[in-house]
């Protein structure tokens, strides 16, 4: 429920000396989030990953290794195998003699970009469809609800694979596919909320004042859903990151030689016996990212609705 304890602050007979400052739900949520040490740690980790991703060219500059540059002599052993971590290659090299550190850093760009873009798109579509369906009801609602049912019963990974087989792999098609299979769950929640919110008195009041449907949907109803939408967004991002990595892992995502955590791990499948670093670094990067977002999403949910169910109680 998005019924936030905004009205907890009852106005007592005002004593101008000791006026109680009213706090908006946002301020309350932020205050709770700030006290949550795990949430702050996750936020720091996410900011750090973002900074590293943005500063990827800096790593190229510092190491002198391009992300797709193959070091046939220095980067490979005489037998042609990857080299372990050393002072030249901090995270070791891969099967083609490329610097794993630089590639992990560049992989962060793909992961974050696809994760954030795909979830944002999914949330926008989900909110629009959910609002329209829930607000108008009737035939439109039935149609949209059935549409969501169909999307949710799609064998999504298989379908994504089939789609990629037609359109050809790539970053943008991955993002579209991820968004397409993620919006319906958001849509369902938003629709359910809208169904109850549209019966509230303030919506009736707005309507009697002559507010248009669009205005009621976006100005009166949507703000009450924002908290939930933000929680959904934070929890969709790690799912989208894993989805992108999975597509790349199966060779159906971003096309090599562009580095992604998924395609690095796919390559490492043939080399994990001789090159543990080839699994460890991209794997750790992926796991830390998804963990940080999942934990943060959990805390955000808790901050907006302390009585609500946590995904994982601590």
């Amino acid at each position: 429920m998005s019924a936030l304890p905004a009205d907890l602050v009852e106005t007592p007979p005002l004593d101008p000396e000791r006026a109680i400052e009213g706090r908006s739900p946002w301020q309350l949520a932020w205050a709770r989030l700030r006290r949550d040490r795990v949430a702050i740690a996750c936020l720091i980790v996410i900011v750090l990953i973002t900074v590293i991703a943005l500063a990827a060219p800096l790593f190229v500059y510092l190491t002198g290794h391009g992300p797709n540059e193959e070091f046939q002599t220095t980067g490979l052993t005489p037998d042609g195998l990857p080299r372990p971590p050393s002072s030249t290659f901090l995270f070791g090299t891969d099967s083609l003699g490329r610097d794993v550190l630089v590639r992990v850093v560049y992989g962060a760009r793909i992961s974050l970009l696809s994760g954030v873009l795909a979830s944002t798109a999914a949330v926008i579509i989900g909110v629009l469809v959910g609002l329209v369906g829930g607000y108008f009801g009737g035939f439109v609602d039935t149609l949209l609800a059935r549409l969501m049912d169909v999307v949710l019963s799609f064998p999504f990974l298989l379908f994504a694979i089939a789609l990629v087989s037609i359109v050809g792999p790539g970053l943008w098609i991955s993002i579209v596919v991820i968004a397409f299979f993620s919006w319906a769950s958001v849509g369902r929640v938003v629709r359910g909320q809208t169904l109850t919110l549209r019966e509230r008195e303030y919506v009736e009041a707005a309507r009697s004042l002559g507010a248009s449907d669009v205005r009621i949907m976006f100005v009166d109803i949507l703000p009450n859903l924002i908290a939930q939408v933000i929680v959904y967004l934070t929890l969709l991002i790690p799912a989208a990151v894993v989805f992108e990595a999975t597509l790349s892992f199966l060779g159906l995502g971003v096309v090599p030689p562009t580095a992604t955590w998924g395609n690095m791990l796919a390559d490492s499948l043939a080399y994990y016996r001789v090159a543990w670093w080839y699994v460890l670094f991209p794997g750790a990067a992926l796991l830390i990212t998804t963990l940080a977002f999942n934990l943060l999403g959990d805390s955000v949910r808790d901050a907006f609705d302390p009585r609500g169910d946590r995904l994982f109680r601590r």
Partner: protein
Amino acid sequence: MVSFLLRRIVLGVGVLWAITTVVFVMFFVAPTHVAQLIAGRQATPQTVALVSQRLGLDRPILTQYLDYLWRLLHGDLGYSYYNSTPVTTLLWQRVPVTASLALGAAVLWLVIGISSGVLASIRPRSLADRVVTASALFFYSMPIFLLGLILLYFLFYKLTLAGFDLFPGSGYVPLSEDPVAWLQHLVLPWLSLALVTAATYTRLTRGAMLDVLGEDYIRTARSKGMRERRVTSRHALRSALTPAVTQLGIDLGTVLGGAIITENVFGLPGLGQLAVQSVVQQDQPVIIGTVILAAAFIVISSIVVDLVYAVLDPRVRAH
């Protein structure tokens, strides 16, 4: 009850029809030129036209669509472009592998998820609870293929190096041929799929158990002097299992997705591997076949879940 079942089946058939239509549009109406793809890049326009005619692709779209639905109704999924085997034969060959993987993993994730959830809920905020919830979060965030790689490294590679050749790194042996080898080949795939999925069940069971344990009838049971073990196992767990049942339906439906990844990591010749292979080979009838099979599976398992639900909870039937 019968009308409830009928309504669900009609709805399921509707969803399935929608999916097959989308698949048809994707593959046959989309701008990609199937005949061109099959004939090859250097084919002359005459060859392309011939291929197009052979496959019936030069007929009006509507005729093609009706023909496609008609054949689908008769269980005819066409022939593989790659080796001309009937798609149904190809699919049936792969079903035992994926079924072994999925069912074994499902048993494992149910056992792990529910028992750890119960364990955590008995003493909330205890050490056991914290360990369980922390590991649930850990596995919840873990991509299946990454866990697969980690298991391969430690339980296959390191263990084999240490002289314990327990779990092979890849391949599949049919159950009928050698049950022990079948088991050995499947333990690691089962674990990768099950641990990742079990996290959701841990969470659901723990939450439901905590809710149920606060109910009046549990207090009544306790005040009658019933042993705590019996209270949790007989009274609380029974009603706390409902969310797990719903989740099982969803997960069994989408298990093919997880199987695609697992089969690729562990080299299991199942439906998932077939799907990825046929995409690489641009073998469209096979891709379509796997998508439709998977969709049918999802629809059927959602009907089964609704049925189980209706049996468990009579209120559902009324709606």
